[in-house]
């Protein structure tokens, strides 16, 4: 039996991809990771003073308030891409007429590119 029959693969032109080989590799890595984890400290105990949150001496907030909401995520990205979002928001008007206008514009561009070229 050949190697291909045991571990089927797809060739992508410049390499190959075999999920079974990959799964085997990830399994081995997982085992190594568990091994390293077992080397850790044994005297850690849950629900004791060890696990309490320490915020530089400030009082801890309620758990629900600590959750980062969806609209607050990637704040930096949004802020730095504001110039792009300005145009994109202007594009998405939510009006059916504008959707058709875009369609006509694309038709015109396509016609110029295909009909003339």
């Amino acid at each position, binding site marked *: 039996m050949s190697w291909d029959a045991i571990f089927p693969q797809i060739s992508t*032109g*410049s390499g190959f991809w075999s*999920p079974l080989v990959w799964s085997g590799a990830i399994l081995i890595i997982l085992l190594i990771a568990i091994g390293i984890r077992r080397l850790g400290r044994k005297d850690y105990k849950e629900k004791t003073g060890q696990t309490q949150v320490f915020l530089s001496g400030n009082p801890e907030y309620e758990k629900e308030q600590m959750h980062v909401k969806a609209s607050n995520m*990637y704040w930096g990205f949004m802020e730095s891409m504001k110039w792009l979002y300005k145009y994109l928001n202007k594009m998405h008007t939510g009006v059916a007429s504008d959707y058709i206008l875009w369609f006509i514009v694309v038709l015109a561009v396509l*016609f110029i590119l295909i009909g003339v070229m």
Partner: protein
Amino acid sequence: MNIYEILLTNSPALIVAIPLLGAFLTPLISRINGKLRNLFAISVLGLTGFFIFWLAANIFIGKETFSYVFGGVETSTVIRIIFEVDALSIFMAIIAIILAFVGTVYSWAFMKDNTGLDKYYTLILLMTTGMLGMVLTGDMFNFFVFLEITSISSCALIAFRTNQGFAIDAGFKYIVISAIGALFVLFAIALLYSQYNALNMAVLANAIKYDFVDKIALVLLVGALAMKAGIVPMHMWLPDAYGRAPAPISLILVGVTQASLYGVLRVVFTVYGGISEILKVNAYLSLGTIVVILAIATMLVGVIMALKQFDFKRMIAYAAVAEIGFMILAIGTGLYLVGVGSLGADMAFKGGVFHIINDALDIGLLFLVAGSVYYATKETSLDKMGGLARNMKYTTIFFIIGLLAVAGMPPMNGFASKLIIYESIYQASPLLSIVAILSSIMLLAVFVKVFHSAFLGPAIPKFKNVKEAPKSMLLAMLLIACLIIFFGLFPDFIINNIVEPATNVLTGGVLS
């Protein structure tokens, strides 16, 4: 002829006729019993699926195409409705039936509290009929008719929750878009008919000259079908429609957009595949360049807009736009490489076609997860969610599978097709690969955001007693998740047996 052969030769017609008959029987059965009606709709789709897989086995193993003439055998004198089923058609039909079947199973519990369910199931079956007809037909006008059937029924389903104003708004936008798109398709078909006095795709392909009128028809067909496939900058209806429809309908709508994409492929590769070599190189170069530009815009606009959303389904809808970008990027690059004369085109088409089925499964699974989150919490905004993983274990597992698949992480199916796409478009330009990988990473970021804000974190008091989704919804998600993992672990099996014959239909007209 025994009954076996009769059924096999008639199966192209039966695939469309069984859901159509089922659609009109549903209101009658609905008067007897609600559960019987649900069971009936599921079994009708199951029977259709049986015929599709039977036909598919014959096509993929026997390497033959089935053509079916409605109403008679003599074809010479009269214009007749002809179905031509080749590997690409049956490939798309498999996607359509999987999505429709899973969506109907999911609807059992999801739509339980709604009224007017007899119409709901009628419309789902009609929509399935339309999708299957679109992908199986070999006739331009017939394609238009099935396109309209699909649009009308899916519009009614998008606006199904008539007590929500924004659902009706989305339905109205969808019907405006699809009515105008379909009318332009009809206009282009009329132009082709006036040129060649034929409506059959094969006859048109033999006769086509690619003169000025043909170019107009090509532009109208590609433009209108691209709008229905949701390609930037004509994608704006898609987040509205996907985001506001009931979750199972969003799932089936993925199939509708892909049937429109199939229409683009059919027009470009089959109907316009018969033009002479010199013209072809020129046409494919310009068309390939345009499609690649549109694809890059589609990917980037899709992910960038998805990143800022905080409505769960609307975010997935923008991700779906980005995924469409991947498909047409591969296909556009393939066209370009054919124009240049490079050998890598085959690989690009293969990646694009493989990604069609992967996209349907991945995005579909995410829509179903969004639906079950909505079912449990009655909440669509991600801002108000949190800590759902504590109570909804299975849904979370399915979400992780969908997340990995959509972001193209190994070992899910999305990785296999995206890897092929990256490597094949690298031959056209390394920049394309970079953009594609970048948008894939951003897709991962988008869904990590969802994962963090909806499933992780402390339990929000409002959702302390949230229940896991009902069994039928879990079963539907399990079906798709199993397919995703199977496709991910054995991509070679899928590519060699299903994707390759389908790709050969495309490249057969091009690389000859």
